[in-house]
């Protein structure tokens, strides 16, 4: 996703604010401590990534990538039973987390009354390089949960000028 143009107000597209939202989401699912770390820290290649696309005042994507171990914790917390032997449940939990996070970030970026369409989450176990884009349109976060589980969150915001303000 190169060549994108940021539309979110500079002050709004802030790592600190999105970190707060992400921390609230993760704490809401699995009670945990949450601290920011460098997004450059490596996530194990045996993990999951959930991506949600959005279209509203801006167009873009939000992604969440977690290790297999944390996906197991997420899925078990959501399902209320041990689903460590069920990779489909883990993928599902990561997709649902991306979905919940995207709704919260959309409310933060555009306010509760703006129309934003959010795609179903796409989940993959094939983690590639972190996405790149222009600095003003890309936010990358690292979160450390319980001083142990590294989670990466990224957000790319772009726009189609012809549709700006029409919804």
């Amino acid at each position, binding site marked *: 996703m190169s060549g994108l143009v940021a539309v979110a107000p500079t002050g709004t597209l802030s790592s600190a604010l999105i970190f707060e939202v992400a921390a609230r989401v993760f704490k809401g699912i699995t009670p945990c401590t949450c601290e920011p770390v460098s997004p450059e820290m490596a996530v194990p290649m045996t993990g999951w990534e959930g991506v949600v696309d959005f279209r509203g005042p801006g167009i873009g994507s939000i992604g969440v990538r977690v290790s297999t171990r944390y996906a197991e914790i997420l899925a078990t917390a959501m399902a209320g039973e041990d*689903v460590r032997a069920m990779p489909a*449940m883990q993928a*599902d939990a990561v997709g*649902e987390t991306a979905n919940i996070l*995207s*709704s919260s970030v959309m*409310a933060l970026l555009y306010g*509760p009354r703006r129309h934003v369409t*959010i795609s*179903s989450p796409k989940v993959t176990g094939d983690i590639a390089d972190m996405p790149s884009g222009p600095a003003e349109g890309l936010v990358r976060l690292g979160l450390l949960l319980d001083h142990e589980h590294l989670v990466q969150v990224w957000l790319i915001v772009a726009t189609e000028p012809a549709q700006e303000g029409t919804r």
Partner: protein
Amino acid sequence: MSFNVLIVDDSAVMRRMVRRALALCDVPMGKILEASDGEQALQVLSEAWIDLVLTDINMPHMSGYTMLETMQQSDDLGAIATIVVTSEKSAESIDRAKAVGAKGYLVKPFRAEELRAMVENTLGSVG
């Protein structure tokens, strides 16, 4: 009297989460059925007596809105109590859900107690 509930969500893990929350409710539960989209849910509703539908909004094949609209327009299904359980938190989504008959609206992630209170409140008014 026990209540039959239909959980509609394309996420299997969320259906389990909702099912677990329902187990905490003080109202007597009968059958708890599941569907993974609106289309499948309407099929279940045509075959089984359901007292309460808990539905997600953003689902493949048929969204929760379309399912609720279809239910609202049906003589048979229009009276069934419905609660939306979704990650969508915009005012537009809440207004739209209410317009198509949703009795409650719960944003994910939710605490089991929140769902329990909403279900008990909704079924209390039905029973």
